[in-house]
C-alpha cells in the first residue's frame, strides 16, 4: 500500500534518527545495556482488553517485570488492535517520530503486515532476545511466518492459537468432524450452529477452514491468488455456504459479532456447536461459570488452522529497551507455563518444551490438566494460515453474497 | 412644578425624558427636596417603573434616556447602581431567601462599619425600630407579609440611601397593614430627611403621601 518513495525515505530517516543517539537505539545483542536502559522505563502495551483472563495475566507480567527489571508495564486495553495501529498511523501523520504513545502491540496477521509494509515498526530485534533460543522454530513454523509474511525479527511470538470447535456434550454427544459432516448435521438440526460475521477474525478463519476441508488441493491457499483464479478455486466454498446459510442460527439473517458473543449463544443454549481460536477457552470459561461443564473441545479430522500471536514495537516507541525486556520475559519458561495453565488462561506455549533445561521444564510439569482441554497430540500440527490475498478476497466475496441478507 | 431651585440637595430630575421606540413614556423636570414626597401616578405600562429603573441605574438598553438626574447635586448618569445611594422598595419585598432576617440586614450595612459586634448591634437596633426584636435568626419565608415589608424597608435604610424610590410598595398588603406600613415608611423618610419618589396607581397611596402628584409626562394631578 505504501508506494510513495518520499514516505519510505521519511520512515527510513526516522529509523536512522533512532539509531544514531545511543539512548534511542538499544541493541538486543548487548542485553546488559538493554537491561540497564530499561530500568525505570514505563512501557505502554496496547493489548486487546476483552478477556479478563488475559488482562490478569498481563497484570502479573507487569508485577514481575517491575520487581525483576524495574520496568513499569501498563496495559492499554483496546477493543480492537487496529486502534493501536490507528494511533501509530496518526502519530506518523502528525510527524511525531519519537516519544510515541505505543510501546508494544499485541499483533498478528493483517495488522502486522500493514505496519511492516508501511515501515512503522522498530527492528529487527526479536531473534536476538536471550530467550529466543527455546522458541520451537521447527515444530511451530508459524512463529517465523505470520500469515505467510516472514516476521524477519520485527515481532516476537508469545502465544500459540489454533482453531478448535466446541459442543455441549449433553445436547450434542457426537459432533461433526468434517465440513461435509457439519452440513449434514446442520440439515438435521437447523439453527443450531453459527459463526461470527466476517470480517471478524474468527468468522474469516471459519471460511478459510472450510476451504481447507473442501478444496482438493489446499496447497494453493499458501500462494497469492488472482481474482479469476479465486473465483474458480473458491467455488466449492460458496456452494457449501449456499446450502449451509439457511441452516444457520437465525437462518443467516443475523450473525454474532465475535467469538465472545458466540460463546454467550452457547451458554444461552441458542446453539449446540461453536468455534474458538483459543484451545484453552472452554476450560477457563467453565471455571468462570461462563459455560456449563458439559462443554468439550475438539478439532476436525484433517486438522485446523493455527497461528501465533506476537508483540511488536512501533518505530517511534518511547520505551524500546523496556519493551524488549517485556517481550523477552514473555518468552521465559515461567511466563509461558503460566499462560498455558488452563486455570489461568490456557493458551499454548510457543516454546519447544522438550528442549528446555530440566530446571525450566518443571514449570510445565506442574501444570494441572482440564477435561475440556486438548493435549498437544490431540490438537495435532496446525494448518498454516492462507496467504493474505485469500483473506481479503474471501471477506469481500462474503460481504457481497451474505453480508446483505436476502 | 417647574419652579427651579438652586439648592443642590434632594433629587433633581433635569429635563428627564425616557423614550421607547419613538414613544415618549416619561418627561419630567422637577426637584424633590429632602423629606418631601413626589408621587407619579399612572396606569400600568405607562413607564412609571422604568423611571425608577433609570434613577437606580438599572435600565434595559431598549429605552433612550435624555436629561440628567442629580442627587444632592451629584450627577448620577454613568455611575454603577451600587454607587448611587438610591434606596428601592418594590411591591414584593425581595428579601434574599438564602439569608436569615439578620443576614438580609447585615448585607445592606456599609463595609465602613467594622467589627462583628458593631454590625450585629446595628442590625439589632434596626430590628428594634421595626418592632421585630429577636427576629435576626428567623427564616424570611416564615414571616408575615407585614413583617417582611418592614424588614425590606429597614434593609434599605441600613444601606444609608440618600433618596427613596418606592414602586407600588403597599399594593400587596391588606388594608390595615397597608395603613400602618405606609405611615411607618413616610415617618422614617421624614425623620431622616430623605427625598421620596413614589410611583403608584393607587389614589389612597398618593393621598397619604401628602405631596405633589404628577403623571409620568409631568402633568400635575389634583386628588
Amino acid at each position: 500500500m505504501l508506494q510513495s518513495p518520499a514516505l519510505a525515505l521519511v520512515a527510513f530517516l526516522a529509523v536512522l534518527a533512532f539509531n544514531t543517539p545511543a539512548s534511542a537505539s538499544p541493541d538486543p545483542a548487548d542485553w546488559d545495556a538493554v537491561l540497564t536502559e530499561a530500568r525505570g522505563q514505563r512501557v505502554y502495551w496496547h493489548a486487546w482488553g476483552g478477556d479478563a483472563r488475559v488482562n490478569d495475566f498481563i497484570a502479573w507480567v507487569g508485577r514481575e517485570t517491575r520487581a525483576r527489571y524495574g520496568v513499569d508495564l501498563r496495559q492499554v486495553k483496546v477493543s480492537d488492535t487496529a486502534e493501536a495501529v490507528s494511533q501509530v498511523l496518526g502519530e506518523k501523520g502528525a510527524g511525531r517520530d519519537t516519544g510515541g504513545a505505543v510501546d508494544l502491540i499485541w499483533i498478528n496477521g493483517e495488522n502486522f503486515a500493514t505496519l511492516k509494509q508501511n515501515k512503522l515498526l522498530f527492528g529487527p530485534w526479536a531473534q536476538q532476545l536471550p530467550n529466543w533460543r527455546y522458541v520451537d522454530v521447527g515444530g511451530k513454523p508459524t512463529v517465523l511466518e505470520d500469515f505467510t509474511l516472514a516476521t524477519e525479527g520485527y515481532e516476537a511470538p508469545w502465544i500459540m492459537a489454533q482453531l478448535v470447535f466446541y459442543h455441549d456434550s449433553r445436547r450434542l454427544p457426537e459432533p461433526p468432524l468434517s465440513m461435509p459432516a457439519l452440513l449434514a448435521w446442520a440439515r438435521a438440526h437447523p439453527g443450531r450452529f453459527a459463526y461470527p460475521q466476517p470480517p471478524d477474525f474468527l468468522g474469516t478463519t471459519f471460511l478459510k477452514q472450510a476451504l481447507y476441508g473442501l478444496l482438493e488441493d489446499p496447497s494453493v491457499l499458501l500462494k497469492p491468488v488472482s481474482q479469476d483464479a479465486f473465483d474458480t478455486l473458491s467455488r466449492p466454498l460458496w456452494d457449501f455456504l449456499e446450502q449451509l446459510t439457511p441452516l444457520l442460527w437465525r437462518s443467516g439473517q443475523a450473525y454474532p459479532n465475535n467469538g465472545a458473543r458466540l460463546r454467550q449463544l452457547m451458554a444461552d443454549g441458542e446453539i449446540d456447536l461453536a468455534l474458538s481460536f483459543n484451545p484453552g477457552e472452554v476450560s477457563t470459561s467453565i471455571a468462570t461459570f461462563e459455560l456449563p461443564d458439559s462443554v468439550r473441545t475438539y478439532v476436525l479430522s484433517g486438522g485446523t488452522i493455527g497461528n501465533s500471536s506476537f508483540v511488536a514495537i512501533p518505530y517511534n516507541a518511547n520505551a524500546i529497551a523496556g519493551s524488549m525486556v517485556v517481550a523477552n520475559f514473555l518468552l521465559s519458561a515461567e511466563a509461558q507455563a503460566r499462560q498455558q495453565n488452563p486455570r489461568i488462561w490456557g493458551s499454548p506455549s510457543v516454546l519447544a518444551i522438550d528442549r528446555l533445561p530440566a530446571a525450566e521444564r518443571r514449570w510445565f510439569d506442574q501444570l494441572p490438566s482440564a477435561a475440556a482441554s486438548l493435549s498437544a497430540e490431540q490438537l495435532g500440527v496446525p494448518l498454516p494460515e492462507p496467504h493474505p490475498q485469500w483473506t481479503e478476497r474471501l471477506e469481500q466475496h462474503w460481504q457481497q453474497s451474505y453480508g446483505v441478507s436476502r | 412644578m417647574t419652579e427651579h431651585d438652586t439648592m443642590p440637595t434632594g433629587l433633581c430630575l433635569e429635563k428627564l425624558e425616557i423614550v421607547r421606540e419613538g414613544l415618549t413614556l416619561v418627561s419630567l423636570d422637577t426637584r424633590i427636596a429632602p423629606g418631601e414626597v413626589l408621587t407619579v401616578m399612572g396606569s400600568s405600562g405607562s413607564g412609571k417603573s422604568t423611571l425608577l429603573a433609570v434613577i437606580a441605574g438599572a435600565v434595559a438598553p431598549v429605552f433612550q434616556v435624555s436629561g440628567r438626574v442629580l442627587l444632592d447635586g451629584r450627577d448620577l448618569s454613568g455611575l454603577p447602581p451600587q454607587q448611587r445611594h438610591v434606596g428601592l422598595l418594590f411591591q414584593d419585598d425581595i428579601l434574599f431567601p438564602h439569608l436569615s432576617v439578620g443576614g438580609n440586614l447585615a448585607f445592606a450595612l456599609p463595609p465602613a462599619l467594622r467589627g462583628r459586634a458593631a454590625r450585629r448591634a446595628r442590625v439589632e437596633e434596626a430590628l428594634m425600630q421595626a418592632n421585630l426584636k429577636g427576629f435576626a435568626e428567623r427564616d424570611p419565608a416564615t414571616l408575615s407579609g407585614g413583617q417582611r415589608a418592614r424588614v425590606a424597608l429597614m434593609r434599605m435604610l441600613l444601606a444609608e440611601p440618600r433618596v427613596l424610590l418606592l414602586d407600588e410598595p403597599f399594593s400587596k398588603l391588606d388594608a390595615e397593614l397597608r395603613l400602618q406600613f405606609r405611615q411607618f415608611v413616610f415617618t422614617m423618610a421624614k425623620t431622616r430627611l430623605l427625598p421620596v419618589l413614589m410611583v403608584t396607581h393607587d389614589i389612597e397611596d398618593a393621598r397619604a403621601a401628602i405631596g405633589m402628584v404628577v403623571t409620568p409626562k409631568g402633568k400635575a394631578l389634583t386628588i
Partner: protein
Amino acid sequence: MTPRPHHRKDLLSWAPWLTLLVLLGPILMGLLGTLAPAFGWLPALGHREFDLTPWRDLFAEAGIARSIQLSVTTGLSATLISLLLAVLICAAWQGTGLFSRIERLLPPLLSVPHAAAAFGLAFLIAPSGWIVRWFSPWATGWDIPPDVLIVQDPWGLAMIAGLVVKEVPFLLLMLLAALGQVDATRSRLVAQTLGYGRIMAWIKGVLPQIYPQIRLPVYAVLAYSMSVVDVAMILGPSTPAPLAVKVITWMNDPDLSLRLRAAAAAVLQFLLVLAALGIWKLGEFGLARLGRHWLETGGRGQRQALWSGLGLGAITLIVASLVLGLLGLALWSVAGLWVFPDALPQHVTLQSWSRYGPALGRPLVDTLIIAVTVVLLALVLTVACLETEYRHGSRPTTRSLWLLYLPLLVPQVGFLPGLQVLFVGIGVNGTLGAVILAHLIFVLPYVFLALADPYRAWDPRTGTVAASLGASANRILWRVRLPMLLTPLLVAAAVGFATSVGQYLPTLLTGGGRITTLTTEAVALASGGDRRIIGIYALLQMALPFIAFSLAIAIPACLYHRRLGMRNTL
C-alpha cells in the same frame, strides 16, 4: 433591566468568545480532518492527491443503500416515536400524582448508560432472554430457545426500541423544563373550561407554546439516533449494519486504506443528519399549517381513557424494561452458572466482583478527576456567559443557541478522528488535558442548557435591590445570585458529570488509550461479551451519575434546611 455597562472592560466579556472557541474550534478542525481523507488526502498513508476514489469505493460497497436507509429509518422512527410517547405521557398525566412520581424517576433513568440499557434490553427480549426464561419450560415447553430473529432484526426494530427507552425519559425532562417557562396549568385549565378534554386541552393549549423550546433537544435526539454506534452494535442489524457502525468498522480495519472510505462515510453520515433535520423541519412546517386548521376545528377530544391508558402503558413499559434490564445485569454480576431455561442463576457468587473489582481503582480515579474538572470548567464558562449576558443586557439569539447545540448535532464519528490527528500533531494526545478538552465539547452544551433557564428566570429586581444596597456586581454574583441558584447549579453540574462519565469515543480517541475511564474499560471488557462484567460496569457507570444527582438534591436541602424560600427554586 440590567445595570448600565461599565467603562472598564472586564474579563467576563471574553467569556462568550472563549466558550464559542472551546465548542466550535475542535468541531471545525475535526471536520476538516475528516473532509480531507474523504477526498483522498491522507499524507500519512501516501495519499496526496484529491480524488473521488473513496466515494466510488463507498457506493460500490455491497448493501450500502440498505445501510444508509437503515440510518435514516431507525433515526427518524426512534425520534418520532420517542417524541409522540413523551408528549402523550405529558398530555395525559401532567399535573397528577403519577406524573410527579415519573418526574422523580427521571434522573436515575437518565443516568443509565445507553450501552447498558441496550445490553439489558437484549437480555430481556432475546429468545433465550429473561422473559422467555420466566415462562420456560413450564408454560412454553421450550427446553432450548426458539430460533426467532428478535434482537438484530433486519428492520432495526429492536434498535429503535432500545433508543426509545432512553430518549423518552430525556424528552420528558426537556418537556418538563419547558413547561416551567409557560403557565401550563392555567393554559390547560382555560382550555378545559372551554370544553376540551384533558389531553386535547394540553395538546391544543400547551404543546404549541412549548414545542419551540424542545425543538433543539428533539433535533439532538434525531442526530444522535441516526449516528449511534454502541446501541446499533448491540441491538441493530448487521447484514448490513447502519452507516455509523460501518464507519467505525472501516476506521478499525487493519487495511489502512479503508480509512479513506471511512472518512467518506463519515461525511455522508453528516450530510444524512443534515438532510434528516431538513425533512423534520419540513414536517414541522407542514404540521404547523395543518395544525392551525385543526386547532380551529374545535374538536374537543374523544376516547380520553384510551389515550391515557396508552400513555400509562408506554411509560410503564419503558420504566419496566430499563429497570428489569438493569436488574438482570445486576443479577448477572453475581451469577454463577446461569443457563437456559433457568429463570435464576444456579448459584450466586461474588467471584466476578472480586476478580474485576481491584482493577477498577485507577479508571475510577481518572473518571472522577476528568469529570470534576470538566464540570468546573463548564460551570465557570457557563456562568461567565450568562452573567455577561445579564450585565450587558444582551439577549441570546436563536442562532447562538444553534451553535451551542452543534456538538450534539454533528455526528461524533464525523469529527472526532480528525480532532485526534490534530491533538497528536500538537503533541497533547494521551494527556488528561486533551481528554478534558474533548469532554468539555460535549459537557458544556448540557451544562449550559441545564443552567440557562433558571439563571435567566432569576428575578432581576433582586439584583437591583442588592445594587441599591451598595453591593457591587461581583458581590451580587457571589453573595446573592449564585447562593440563590445553588440547586440549579448543582443539578447542571450533575448533568455535566453524567455526560462526562458516559463519554466513550472522545475518551478513547483523545486519551490515546492511556487515559482510561470506567466507560472505556467497560466497552473494552464488553467486547469479551461476558454479561457478568457488563453488569458490574453498568452498575458502576450508573452509580456515579446517580450519586451526583442525589448530592445535587441533598446539598441544598442540607444547607438550606431552615430556608423555606429556597425549597422551590428548582
